[in-house]
């Protein structure tokens, strides 16, 4: 209760209340997240259940168009699955992978950044060298390559089975240097502050200092980049799936759906690509808007506290 009161009175909440864009994007994102968590409840059909799909329903247009049917509001895809339900499950997968990947990036990156920054020396030089080398190659290339290799190594079937964790690992490992660098920079800044000296003098051991004293102070920049990273992770997953290196068509994410529907826009079934595309773009947009707002709020230069 005390924390809630403190939050309500904080600058963060204050500027949030006054910014319509922040309120809008946060609400929209919350709605999307809730929908995806409650997918089995919210979606009209369970699209993973083969029994409910009839190939004869394939390529039905949305309900308001000619040929459409009330039971499939947004139409169906090429296999006869209800598009709306597939989109909801796809949203769930996209978010799951996006957030999972960022969690992985963050954990690895923070760990490396903390150790590197605080302990310094050869360890720092070594870790940062690796980060630099990985940094000089665009993250998307790393992701595309790694998934291509995995696909070849595991074979198509096995890859499809393990797709979700594999994608989380692939996307997670392609971007950890960003977290490492950010945290390291923060740690270097905090390391020389007096409270760290004081803790050392009292005799608290290194690990405790790192974990309980230094780490909390480096979390603000981490929070700021995290939202943007989630958006990037979602985009990466969509890109990989679109290229056929991501989620398979049986358990599609939004990117995979777009891939599946792509060929059919020429024959007129535009909705298969259109609706998932709009949902994907919207999802990324609200995450980015929220991230932009967070960054402005935490920017010390603009801070009028």
């Amino acid at each position: 209760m005390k924390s809630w009161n403190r939050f309500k009175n904080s600058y963060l909440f204050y500027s949030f209340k006054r910014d319509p864009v922040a309120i809008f994007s946060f609400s929209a994102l919350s709605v999307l997240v809730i929908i995806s968590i409650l997918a089995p409840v919210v979606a009209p059909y369970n699209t993973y259940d083969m029994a409910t799909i009839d190939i004869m329903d394939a390529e039905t247009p949305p309900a308001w168009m000619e040929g459409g049917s009330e039971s499939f509001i947004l139409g169906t895809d090429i296999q006869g699955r209800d598009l709306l339900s597939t989109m909801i499950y796809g949203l769930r997968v996209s978010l799951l992978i996006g957030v999972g990947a960022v969690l992985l990036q963050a954990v690895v990156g923070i760990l490396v950044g903390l150790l590197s920054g605080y302990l310094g020396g050869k360890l720092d030089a070594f870790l940062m060298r690796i980060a630099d080398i990985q940094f000089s190659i665009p993250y998307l290339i790393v992701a595309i390559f790694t998934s291509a290799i995995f696909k070849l190594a595991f074979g198509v079937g096995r890859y499809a089975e393990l797709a979700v964790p594999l994608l989380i690992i692939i996307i997670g490992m392609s971007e950890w240097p960003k977290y490492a660098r950010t945290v390291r920079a923060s740690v270097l800044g905090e390391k020389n502050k007096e409270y760290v000296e004081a803790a050392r003098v009292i005799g608290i051991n290194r690990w405790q200092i790192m974990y309980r004293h230094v780490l909390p102070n480096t979390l603000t920049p981490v929070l700021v980049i995290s939202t943007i990273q989630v958006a990037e992770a979602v985009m990466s997953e969509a890109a990989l799936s679109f290229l056929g290196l991501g989620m398979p068509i049986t358990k599609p994410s939004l990117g995979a759906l777009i891939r599946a529907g792509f060929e059919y826009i020429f024959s007129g079934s535009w909705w298969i690509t259109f609706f998932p595309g709009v949902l994907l773009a919207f999802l990324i947009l609200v995450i980015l808007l929220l991230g932009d707002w967070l960054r402005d709020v935490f920017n010390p230069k603009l801070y009028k506290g």
Partner: protein
Amino acid sequence: MFAFIVRRIIQAIIVMLVISLVGFSIQHQIGDPIRDLVGERVTPAEREAIRDQLGLNDPFYVQYVRFVKNACKGDLGLSFFYKKPALEVIAAKAPATIELVIVTALILIVISIPAGIYSAIYPKSWFSRIVMAFSTIGVAIPVFLTAIALIYLFGVELNWLPSYGRGETVNLWGWESGFFTWDGLKHLVLPSVSLSSIMLPLFIRLVRAEMMEVLETEYIKFAWAKGLHRERVWYIHAFKNTLLPVITVFGVQLGILFAFTILTETVFQWQGMGFMFLEAVERSDTSLLVAYLVVVGVIFVVVNTIVDIVYGFVNPMVRIAGTK
């Protein structure tokens, strides 16, 4: 200055070695060079014999060194699918990708610099606001969606522009170019516009932000106090300072642009290196995959190094400091 160039080149070589190591490891683990050479119908005994002959039972580092030596000579293995040296296949496809990237880069420069400068000088104008709004939204839309949207609008509905392939190309000493025919140029439009849509929001914002920062500096104020003409203050004093950070970012982004060609070429069935890469994945053509990795790695490193060196020349503070 010379020391600076040497340092950059050494750094470049190190990165290339790392890339080659990664590439080779992949080749080593997943590739099947025997199949690449003689196909699938060989007995196990024959396999072993060929393995020995090719030195495939040698220790890792021996094979790696051989790999690097061959690579430097231009031999990156044989493509299983095309039955031709991998490098040859890539060389044939490279012009398509390079031309696409060139046109995209041109679009980026021609649009983002004027738009960025204008919205920095007149930030409250309706033009600036629209540009900013577009760039916020533009960042959120993945490139393949933009590509698909463009194809649908201009290719299917309006039928103004072709939506796949390169169209007619002209062969100039082995370089298949789409620049010299009307048809080829028409085919270049949608793919390059799609590709540029990824970077355009970023660059417009970057140019604008840098320009705005520069316009607040003391030396710009002094330029006004000297009574110089507006155009001179904006385009000579401010612009050059704005350009410096933009050049660095541009260099980095050029590499990322290459990554995105994979996505764009897929949508437009553009017969370039990116499309070839995906086909190689489908066909389990490991040599081609690794060759692509190495070639693209080399391209990045070279482009980044050149950009760094160019920056060193353009920024007088680096240029002269390097000699001290």
